[in-house]
């Protein structure tokens, strides 16, 4: 099966500091893949390389096409929704305007309406707060808004950067439940960056562990969960 997203020997960094030293990974259609590792291992930089937020060499292919020299705006329009570190909420705008920006490029109006219904079913709190400034939302609500907006983009692939960060365990559960639902209903592939390895491995079918800028281990999630020494030295539980 051809991969939806493929990274091949990707090097990337900020100015003189290189962060990724040859990362290779692949995700196929509809698959959930976890990207794990300690702070500073290069998880966020990997996501940023994919959407062109950082200069990279090597090759990144999405749906059979190289993303080299492609602008962020254009590759996003090809079906990648990136919920970045810090959630990427436009706090100067209202909740509704944030959602609108998720689907303003879509022309299939009826489907957009249906997607709005779904979003509000998943996250009823967003319907109640539609007219409020997004800056008034709590951390968990902002994460919900970010995921709702990503859903409205109708992507082929979602890149989620630590959706659990700073949230209460119950909220994390609820959000991951909905990520799973979205994955299963829409066959959206998900690349999930997480510190919380336990919950990430429960969701994903495959996982990569990054260590200072390269892939230290990769395998199916159950393999990684089962391997005591991997768990202890890399995943910390």
């Amino acid at each position, binding site marked *: 099966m051809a991969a939806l997203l493929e990274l091949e020997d990707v090097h990337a960094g900020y100015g003189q500091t290189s962060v990724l030293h040859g990362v290779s990974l692949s995700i196929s259609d509809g698959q959930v893949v976890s990207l794990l590792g300690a702070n500073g291992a290069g998880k966020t930089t990997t996501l940023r390389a994919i959407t062109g937020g950082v200069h990279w060499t090597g090759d990144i292919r999405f749906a059979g096409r190289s993303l080299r020299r492609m602008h962020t705006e254009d590759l996003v*329009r090809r079906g990648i929704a990136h919920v970045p570190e810090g959630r*990427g909420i436009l706090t*100067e705008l209202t909740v509704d305007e944030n959602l*609108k920006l998720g689907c303003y490029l879509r022309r299939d109006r009826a489907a957009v309406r249906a997607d709005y219904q779904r979003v509000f079913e998943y996250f009823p709190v967003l319907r109640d707060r539609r007219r409020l400034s997004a800056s008034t939302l709590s951390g968990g609500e902002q994460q919900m808004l970010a995921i709702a907006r990503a859903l409205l983009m109708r992507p082929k692939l979602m890149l989620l950067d630590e959706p659990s960060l700073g949230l209460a365990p119950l909220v994390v559960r609820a959000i991951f439940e909905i990520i799973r639902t979205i994955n299963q209903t829409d066959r959206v592939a998900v690349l999930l960056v997480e510190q919380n390895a336990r919950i990430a491995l429960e969701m994903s079918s495959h996982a990569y562990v990054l260590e200072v800028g390269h892939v230290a281990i990769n395998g199916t999630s159950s393999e990684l969960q089962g391997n005591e020494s991997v768990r202890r030295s890399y995943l910390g539980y």
Partner: protein
Amino acid sequence: MQELTQQILSGLATGGIFASLALALVLIYNAMGLVNFAQGEMAMFSTFIAFTLIDRGMSYWIAFPLTLVIAFVAGVVVQRVVIRPVERAPVLTLVIVTLGLATLVNGLAGFIYGYVPRSFPSPFSVQTVKILGAYASYQDLGVIAVSGVVLLAIYVLLQRTTIGLTMRAAAHHPEASRLLGVRVSWMLALGWGLAAAVGAVSGIMVAPILSLEPNMMQTIIIYAFAAAVLGGIESPVGAVVGGLVVGVTVNLAGAYLPFVGGDLQLAVALAIIVGVLILKPNGLFGRAAVRRV
């Protein structure tokens, strides 16, 4: 009482002019975190274009919108050619670039049109009409109406249309907007075009009062700065309210404070700038700058 009403009405007319230019400053400030020091000069040059069109026999009400279109295109071109290459440069570089642009446009206007003041036509008669027990000139009422329509149009564009939404998104959150597919660079260029067009309105409205010459906008821009600062520099609504407040205040001060008269009105504007910066640095509609460490 009658005179007070009259003074307020005429203050609102000049306030509308200040508000237009202040709004132009705010639009650019939101897009690049800096006011465009060439905004007034660009407005002056646009007014010369309107003058040329009318001088060649075009009707005022065709020349006016046509000038706004030309100003819009010129604003976009200036952003693409002059500003974009230094987009990521330090603030001081951008200050110098816009100051240089101001000098360039001013010199260019002098070179092409000369420094002899010309009278600029007004479509409104100077006759007066009685409203609210006071006599208001059609000129003042016309300026208020035109500014009002233009400012309302900008408001609708920014708040009620998709393109306005993406412009606001690009200005405030460039990185996050890119991830949503917004062509940020072009949105900023549209912002420049819009600012140039609104600025042109202020130039065309003030020209019949001041007479047209290359340095015409140099005092107006100070009033516009005062208006923008009073409104909170980031807020389009604040710029409009600030413009009206500055217009009325300056007019009343000129009329009722004997030591101000006609000569010290600019000092009133400067006093407003200094006063706001000392007492309420975020202006009337601005929010406190919060920086996370």
